């Protein structure tokens, strides 16, 4: 008699279980690694377009002064209490991780209290902003096409077209977006698109005193940012989200989210 497909004879039952296990294992591997991850794990991710411009944040150089936050506010007329870029302080202790960002660090940081200081194992200030991802959740959820990526990789918001529904604010895993209370439109860092198009650096990079923030052409071998990729020691925020950020961090403690 021909073998039936799911007859649970002892032999075929073993076969069935073996298939089940190997199938589940494959599915798990696919879920963890992600399809195609092997092909594009390096710099440059999803979009079909060629991208040159990258933003590099060297955490080891950040002194937490907040000049970037102040300059961003002035350059882009960001309403008070809202931030297109901000700086977070991470103090890692045996008992837990202490994170704060008083007023986005617009006035830098006050000395941390002695109790936390005495427990500190690693302490860093981490600049944060829009990551101008190559696989941006914000663009995917926008119902009207008001947020988009330019040909050279800037993720921008069209304030004229935006309806202020805030789906993108919810979708961003980095908390980089907010609803501008004056315009009632989604707002976020543009990598100072207007400055870069005029041949200048973003305002935050311009005022950074200790080269913690860098911006430039990844494919120009003489640029500061290209050196970072030559050494290949960068990280991105939340790689598990598969957003393919174009802000690359050097010296990022693994605890930072």
């Amino acid at each position, binding site marked *: 008699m021909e073998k039936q497909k799911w007859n649970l004879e002892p032999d075929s039952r073993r076969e069935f279980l073996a298939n089940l296990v190997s199938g589940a294992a494959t599915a798990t591997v696919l879920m963890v690694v992600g399809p195609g991850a092997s092909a594009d794990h390096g710099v440059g991710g999803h979009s079909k377009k060629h991208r040159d411009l990258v933003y590099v944040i060297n955490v080891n150089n950040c*002194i937490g002064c907040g000049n970037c936050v102040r*300059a961003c506010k002035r350059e882009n007329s960001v309403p008070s209490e809202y931030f297109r870029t901000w700086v977070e302080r991470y103090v890692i202790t045996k008992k837990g991780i202490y994170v704060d960002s008083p007023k986005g660090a617009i006035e830098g940081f006050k000395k941390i209290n002695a109790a936390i200081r005495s427990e500190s194992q690693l302490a860093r200030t981490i600049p944060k902003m829009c990551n101008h991802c190559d696989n941006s959740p914000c663009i995917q959820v926008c119902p009207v096409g008001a947020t988009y990526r330019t040909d050279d990789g800037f993720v921008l918001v069209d304030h004229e077209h935006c309806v202020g529904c805030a789906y993108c604010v919810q979708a961003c895993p980095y908390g980089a977006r907010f609803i501008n209370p004056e315009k009632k439109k989604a707002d976020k860092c543009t990598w100072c698109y*207007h400055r870069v198009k005029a041949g*200048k650096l973003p*305002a935050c990079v311009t*005022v950074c005193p200790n080269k913690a923030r860098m911006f430039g052409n990844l494919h120009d071998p003489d640029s500061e940012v290209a050196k970072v990729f030559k050494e290949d020691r960068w990280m991105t925020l939340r790689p598990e989200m598969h957003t393919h950020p174009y802000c690359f961090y050097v010296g990022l403690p693994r605890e930072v989210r």
Partner: protein
Amino acid sequence: MPNPSPRSHLYRLGGLLVIGLIGFLAVKALATPSSWNHEDWYRGDSPKEIAALPLSYGGNESCQGCHKKTHDQVEAFGHKGLSCESCHGAVVDHAGDGKKIADAKVDMESNWQCMNCHEDQITKPKFFPTFKPTKTHEDVDADMLCSTCHEAHNPGL
């Protein structure tokens, strides 16, 4: 009176659908901005509008024209590479059309600016010079300015 066609309800429905479709296409055509980029799905004029926004910070090169001597002095000493505008404010608030339009910010009343960068904190990079409680710094308090001993443009001693 002739009997109505047994399919008249279908004709009516079909007619309504055609009218609805025409209405939908008309609204869509009116609501889609003329510069719409159908490939990448955004208003094509938007990046041009954003690129046309005014600039506030000019970078150190923007001070060079009017303050060449000071500029080159700063670049020769310990604060080289610092942004003039991080201490003096954005250039558009001070100069425009080749003239001075308002005083540049100069903080001579407090140590806030110096301490904002130099306060000795656990988050500072290893090799960054901080304000340490050394013998010379013992008496420094809010009443004694850093500029008593250090020059902002040439801070080393």
